């Protein structure tokens, strides 16, 4: 099975190399029957190539897949950190820490809950908090006995999650510029909304209403949240 994953990864890597300059490929069409025949899990079949790389790292400690993940995400994580004013060296420390954690935590990646990009974003964000701010990152722990579990997901949840995360990516790009700007300052520069207001020289209430408008669109588009 690991052989098949490698073959697929390599084939798709050529796609990702070609489009490296422009927008990355979000959907890669792979014949699902073909993959089913070689015995890949249904989950792996439906996820995008980045998700399959993470699954390959988790299931077979696949270094080729890990390298693919690195080639795809490491330069973006570096760019992402430098938005925050970090030096190249600091940003590369964050990249290294993030990838050590990606390797260690790959088994916790749940394609029903997050896209590869969102999962890696969270790991990079936490590495940045850890190394640059030198703080802990408190997070809800699903193994906690006092964690209130969700309703069990249907087997089709993975499809639904994938469809929605793709829609969400397009959707973020299509948000009005002023709402996108607030989100970018928050995520790229780690600015709390109060500082976003200061930086843009606009009232706090205006920032809050932009956040609410963006969320309202996300809600109306994606329902049930």
């Amino acid at each position, binding site marked *: 099975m690991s052989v098949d994953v490698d073959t697929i990864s390599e084939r798709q890597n050529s796609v990702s190399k070609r489009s490296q300059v422009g927008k990355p490929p979000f959907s890669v069409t792979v014949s699902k029957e073909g993959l089913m025949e070689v015995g890949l899990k249904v989950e792996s079949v439906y996820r995008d190539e980045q998700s399959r790389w993470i699954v390959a790292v988790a299931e077979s400690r696949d270094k080729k897949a890990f390298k693919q993940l690195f080639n795809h995400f*490491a330069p973006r994580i570096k760019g992402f950190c430098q938005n925050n004013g970090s030096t190249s060296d600091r940003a590369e420390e964050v990249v290294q820490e993030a990838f050590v954690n990606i*390797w260690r935590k790959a088994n916790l990646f749940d394609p029903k809950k997050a896209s590869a990009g969102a999962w890696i974003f969270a790991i990079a964000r*936490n590495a940045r908090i850890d190394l640059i701010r030198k703080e802990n990152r408190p997070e809800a722990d699903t193994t906690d006995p006092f964690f209130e579990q*969700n309703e069990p997901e249907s087997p089709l949840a993975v499809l639904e999650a994938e469809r929605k995360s793709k829609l*969400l990516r397009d959707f*973020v790009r299509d948000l009005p510029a002023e709402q996108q700007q607030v989100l970018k300052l928050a995520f790229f520069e780690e600015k709390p909304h109060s500082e976003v207001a200061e930086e843009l020289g606009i009232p706090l209430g205006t920032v809050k209403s932009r956040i609410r408008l963006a969320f309202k669109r996300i809600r109306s588009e994606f329902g049930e949240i």
Partner: protein
Amino acid sequence: MKITHHLSEELLLDYSSGALSEGWSIAVAAHLSKCSHCRALHAKLEEVGGALLTDSAPEGLSYDIFENVLNRLDEGGASVGNEVRKNIEWARRYGIPAVVTDYLAADTKKLPWKSLGLGVSQVVLETKDTTATARLLKIPAGKKVPHHSHNGRELTVIFSGGFTDETGNYGPGDIQEIHGNAEHQPWVREEEDCICLAVTEAPLKFSNVAVRLAQPLIGI
């Protein structure tokens, strides 16, 4: 658990983006441990973060970074996610989530409560955050806390019992977010003590002891 008071969107955005400092983040994560509604929105925000990361401009890396990463890898199986949690008696009794107990689990039998007066006790959580103070509070059943306000923001997450104030009824899992100098007078439910996490701006440090003593009781 019926949760009626949720995280504000601004606070959830600050937490998801990583902008929120550690003290406040404990309250957000404690609420998320109890609230699948806010968790769903949090997951969507991480997708937004993922979308922005995926679309961000790549930066060239030094040639040896991947090599460095490989050298740090543990070659064995994945090594996280199988930790065995301690059985913490007080956490079970009060329904306190791991994100809070992780800060306090040194003694699994009892919490080191310290009296604040008027029957109210606290345990302060040791964090690396100098801008906010997080503490567990125990307020006796039926207690009417005097009118008070806080400097800046206050977040309260209830684990057991509950209270009522001018803004509504709060029970297990609920989060209360107060801003500025809004005054409130929480009235704890009669049936049981209220155990909650309260996060406030780190207090101003007065050098003068008399001034410090003059701070109101719940001027925390």
